[in-house]
């Protein structure tokens, strides 16, 4: 007989349930299986009504983030064998509203991305026939790390501030702002500062640092926030002391 492992999966169907509850499923414990494979096994063989998001199964589309044994992880990059002996608790990402089962509402997160103006802002539009902007490997390295974010939202599920303060733009969105701020082609930092140095911006962060701990892509949002604070403070100081200076 094949060995099995138990998953305790959080269920919630708004039409029926007043409260979420956990349901147990036994699945084969196979080498090479990730938690997502176990969920797919359940959906195909035991219970077709279980709902969750996934697509790439290679840790790059950012769909499959969930709480596994109380930690936010990508379920397609977390092996069953890492969770022995079980049972394995699978729940939707913390601090997000649940739509159903393991599916959370991500509208707020999507709005936050837009709030930081995540596109290249330049004073003048460079015509395409003029060719590429030059950017040396060293210049690119300045923002490379921040450009690796897959929008999986694990950092939001780990951040107590984002949990308590819905207005807080949060770790990934700040890292995204920095991705453009430190891009040698960009001239939009001032516009982004309006959003990020004000309410719900970088100063809401109390340096818990959990966001960087859970990030599967080593984006280091905590570092991005820290770096912003250092430069942001300087800019604020400049605008107070020499209000006309920052032209």
């Amino acid at each position, binding site marked *: 007989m094949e060995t099995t492992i138990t998953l305790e999966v959080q269920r919630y169907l708004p039409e029926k349930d007043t409260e979420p509850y956990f349901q147990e499923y036994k699945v084969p414990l196979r080498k090479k299986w990730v938690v997502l494979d176990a969920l797919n096994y359940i959906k195909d063989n035991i219970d077709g009504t279980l709902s969750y998001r996934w697509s790439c199964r290679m840790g790059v589309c950012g769909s499959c983030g969930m709480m596994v044994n109380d930690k936010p992880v990508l379920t397609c990059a977390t092996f069953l064998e890492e969770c022995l002996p079980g049972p394995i608790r699978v729940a939707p990402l913390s601090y997000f509203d649940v739509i159903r089962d393991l599916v959370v509402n991500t509208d707020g997160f999507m709005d936050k991305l837009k709030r930081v103006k995540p596109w290249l802002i330049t004073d003048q539009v460079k015509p395409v026939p003029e060719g590429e902007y030059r950017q040396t490997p060293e210049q690119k390295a300045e923002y490379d790390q921040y450009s690796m974010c897959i929008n999986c939202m694990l950092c939001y599920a780990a951040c107590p501030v984002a949990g308590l303060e819905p207005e807080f733009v949060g770790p990934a969105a700040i890292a995204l702002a920095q991705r453009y701020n430190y*891009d040698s082609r960009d001239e939009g930092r001032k516009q982004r500062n309006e959003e990020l140095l004000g309410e719900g911006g970088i100063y809401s962060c109390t340096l818990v640092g959990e966001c960087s701990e859970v990030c599967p892509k080593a984006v280091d949002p905590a570092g991005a926030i820290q770096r912003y604070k250092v430069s942001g403070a300087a800019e604020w100081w400049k605008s107070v002391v020499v209000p006309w200076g920052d032209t």
Partner: protein
Amino acid sequence: MARYGPNEHDVLIVGGGGAGLRAAIAVAETNPELSIAVVSKVYPMRSHTVSAEGGSAAVIKDNDSFDDHAYDTISGGDWLCDQDAVEAFVKEAPKELLQLEHWGCPWSREEDGSIAVRSFGGMTNKRTWFAADKTGFHLLHTMFQTTMKYDPIQRYDEYYVTRLLVDNGRCQGVVAIELATGKIEAIAARSVIMCTGGCGRIFPFTTNGNIKTGDGMAFAYREGVPLKDMEFVQYHPTGLPFTGILITEAARAEGGHLLNKDGYRYLQDYDLGEPKPEPIHRSMELGPRDRLSQAFEKEEEKGRTIEGPYGSYIHLDIQHLGEEIIDRKLPFVRELCLKYENIDPVKEMIPVRPVVHYMMGGIDTDIHGATKLDGLYAAGETACVSINGANRLGSNSLTELLVFGARAGQAAAEFASEQKPFSSALEALATDESRRIEKGFFSENGSNPESIASIRQEMYQAMEKGVGIYRSEDSLERSQEKIQELQERLMNVSIEDHSYTFNTELVAALELSNMLDISEAIIQSALQRTESRGSHQRVNYPDRDDEHFLAHSMAYKSEVGPPKIEYQPVTITRWPPGERVYGH
């Protein structure tokens, strides 16, 4: 004139992958007055473009030329490409990639800050732009973020389209389910662009994500639009066994070797050139994908592959590149191998085997992305223009998304600008569709205890057996019968989940019915093409037959039974059909 309130747009794009987003921006730039809808079953940045690794081709360096890129593409496609389309493609490619650079795409750079390019399979020169080995990821996120600054682009995220709205011979929108609420509604539009991606998920072993179920192809097909060249299915030679995760061709372009069980670079036995320590363009490991995957099958027949628990495999060896190059140019390869195979390619060889990767075929379009149905356009992997012919060259697809996404966007914008009135029948069509879905999948006739999963499993087997790298008449016929049986069985399935909230079982059922329809088109096109060309290899017809088959297959849906196949000539401009020569 019937109005559809907020659910009414000028141009509606189904799909938020590379093709869809490029099309959306093109519409906005062609006519800023138009209202644009991007409808996608997943948030755009989850689209499978995100997983593309190796790069995107466009001539940029002085030693390269449009003609070289065109010739590589045409010979790579075994002369089934339409050469007018290829010529437009290679010319517009650099402009598109530069545009992306101006939107912020973090392309890898040379020391002097100019764009870096790498070699790729079947290409004569270095012309593949790359963002390390996460090119699709950066391309998609850059474009998604850029679309946020265009106010006319309105997104319908996590809406699952179930059919096209066609009346009076004109496509006028779609019916879609809002997944969060289960609401089924009409979204009317003066023109529609299908950018729904490929359908690798009809096979069990694929690099394609769960969402690649060919929905758009099936919708167009059901409305009488032909599917073109569907028999051409690309097997990529290097996928990780078990997961099917892709190890990019860039690993070979940087100098990786393919070794059989004796550590021998076996490609030298398959007319692909002589082994040299350094990578040589159009030779050995840099040959085209169809030839490399076929060589694997032959090698397997000879018993020179390695047996593993998930099928036989060979080795991809990149150790000699050294840690520095691997980390700089192939960091994702290392990350994926460590994570999913527990192997460090800096010190170990990578087990690989051929894996279903890409559809050369798709919705038949002209060079502007227009289909035979008025108001309907298509671009990206779901479309077949065709620049890919019988075998796509690696790194041409991402570029194709941009070039033909933009072209389709412009054409659809112009069509929509004519402001043809909507038919009054659209609402009724949407009501019918909602009834079809309720009745088809929610009714408790319950007599059939079958699950979606079991039918899907049988489809996998039929496709793997019938439409593998080498195909026989017999196995194709058996697969065709099987698919027909499964289509009937699916009609009688009732699903367990009757909720209106985020019902993923319903989506899976609808996707399965799409996949079965596409499967029949693939099999029938393969059956009738009694020659071997590019990725389509028929065991009893080993040669290319230009006299009969220098032509595109066009599969038209029948009321019952397999589709009708017609043929359309290939456009030849400057490169008459010749022999495909590699390694010389």
